[in-house]
């Protein structure tokens, strides 16, 4: 009995989480433009997706910025995390609190603050400002996902490596980084998704000609969101799902070895 209840509960939770995604994928094949009516099965939104120039540019900028920003913020964030980890307790707490500030700051404040900063420094808004903004809001999340892994680390191992003649840089590469790798990868993925997701900060820090998908979709809202977005979301979902499966397979293989 207890088993059944818990199974029911679990399936309800999963239903709640995945129903919107399933509906989205189904409606990407809907021939009618409206959510209300089912007009038959079609691939036309997928075809239109490749014709729509706005969506294509937006997709290009979204992916370029997400990957670049995630890479840079992962590198900077990991280095900062290692630095913070090696501080004395008081300073460490201070820096951790400073790190929390951008996270709890509302996006709109961050966005407008960054815009004013760029403008007062006479930087023309565009690709580079949007990228810098994304790196800025990504870094704290990377630090937060790397730090717990560092805390699990046995300090003696690094010291042993140094004792045995490894240079600090060598021990960083061969000892520390391999052990905190799961945290780095999580940090990268969080940064990547945050960057794809962001509307408010992007809107205020981008200039003419550079948009991302969030801005594009949000701007469509006034006139009804085009079903091509359903098609695009389904494709992105498929890519992410594929990536997850590959990563899973790799980790199970590694475990077996």
């Amino acid at each position, binding site marked *: 009995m207890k088993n059944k209840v818990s199974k029911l509960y679990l399936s309800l939770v999963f239903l709640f989480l995945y129903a919107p995604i399933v509906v989205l994928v189904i409606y990407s094949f809907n021939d*009618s*433009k*409206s*959510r*209300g*009516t089912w007009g038959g099965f079609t691939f036309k939104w997928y075809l239109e997706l490749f014709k*729509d*120039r*706005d969506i294509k540019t937006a997709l290009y900028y979204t992916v370029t910025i997400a990957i*670049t920003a995630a*890479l*840079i913020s992962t590198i900077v964030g990991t280095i900062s995390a290692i630095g913070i980890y090696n501080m004395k307790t008081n300073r460490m707490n201070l820096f951790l609190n400073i790190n929390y500030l951008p996270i709890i700051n509302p996006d709109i404040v961050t966005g*407008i603050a960054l*815009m*004013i900063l*760029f*403008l007062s420094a006479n*930087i*023309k*808004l*565009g*690709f*580079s400002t949007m*990228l810098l903004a994304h790196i800025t809001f990504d870094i704290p999340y990377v630090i937060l996902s790397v730090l717990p892994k560092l805390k699990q680390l046995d300090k003696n191992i690094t010291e042993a490596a140094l004792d045995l003649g490894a240079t600090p840089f060598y021990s960083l590469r061969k000892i520390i980084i391999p052990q905190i790798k799961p945290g780095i990868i999580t940090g990268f993925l969080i940064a990547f998704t945050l960057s794809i997701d962001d509307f408010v900060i992007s*809107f*205020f820090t*981008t*200039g*003419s*000609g*550079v*948009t991302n998908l969030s*801005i*594009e979709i*949000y*701007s*469509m*809202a*006034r*006139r*009804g*969101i*085009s079903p091509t977005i359903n098609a695009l979301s389904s494709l992105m979902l498929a890519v992410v799902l594929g990536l997850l499966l590959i990563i899973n397979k790799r980790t199970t293989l590694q475990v077996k070895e």
Partner: protein
Amino acid sequence: MKKYLILITMLTALILSGCSSSQDETLDIFNYGQYIDEELLVEFEEEFGVKVNYQEYPTPEDMYTKVKAGGTDYDLIITGEYMIERMISEDMLEKINFDNIPNYQYIDENFKNQAYDSNNEYSVPYFWGTLGIIYNTEIVEGNPDSWDLLWDENYSGQILMMDSQRDSLASALKKLGYSLNTTNESEIEDAKNLLIKQKPLVMAYIVDEALDMMIADEAAISLIWSGEAVAAMGENDKLNYYIPKEGSNIWIDAACIPKNADNKDLAEKFINFVTSKKNTLRNIDYVWYSTVHTEAEKEVEEFLYDNPAFNPSQEKIDKAEMFRDLGDNLKLYDDAWTEVIAH
């Protein structure tokens, strides 16, 4: 180590390449989402040998915040009339040289000499529309013609209102016979009380989903903008639209050129390009809002011409009122609407 260096160099190069601006002549346009047939942009690029940078914004307020802060160099902005009024009063717009826009002669006189740009110096009308009521003819009986329908207790729980303060308050103010730009506190108070009285009848306060819910027969009556009504009526034959007899809101979206535009000539060429008869007709087919072009209006398809949402009678147009930029008095509306929603 070398690997990291290469990576860093590549990334730096990437960032810097984003900074450098190309030497080609470019036209930077800032517009609402999905508010132009994009093929027109491609054709303009080919015809004039230039590049078009096209960017979209969600609401006029977002656009204003960005342009006001500086650092952008849009050559052409398409936005609502009350926002143009504000930008003119803040000296953010450049006067347009109408010698470059011969097609201006085709713009309907109804939309020239309006209070927002009283000397026709700063803007060229693009599309227009009205605020009205869409209803399901199978559920609603008779031929409603008044704002009273939104307060009709027979349809309790089937009425949709807009989560947009000026629009929803406009319906109440007009029902009471007041101006929708009133700054008289007791009039706004009356409208607020009317909306609070209406609340038990209302199914939801929404903006974007209204269209879908009406098409799917999930609601019977909704406050709606005319262009969305045209789109909904195309999908569901049972729907009908009217502009209430007490008068309503009429709005104009127009093209204007901001002060820091670096390609004013090209922006004027583009305005002339989209206001040609041929291109206006193509744009109508994509946007579905009412056209300001007198010649194009005669050639739109019959179902549009006969649709009261697309082509309302002159009498209704004369009675409709535009939103004005209320400046600090907007706070009265803010407060009233907050009270309605929180009640």
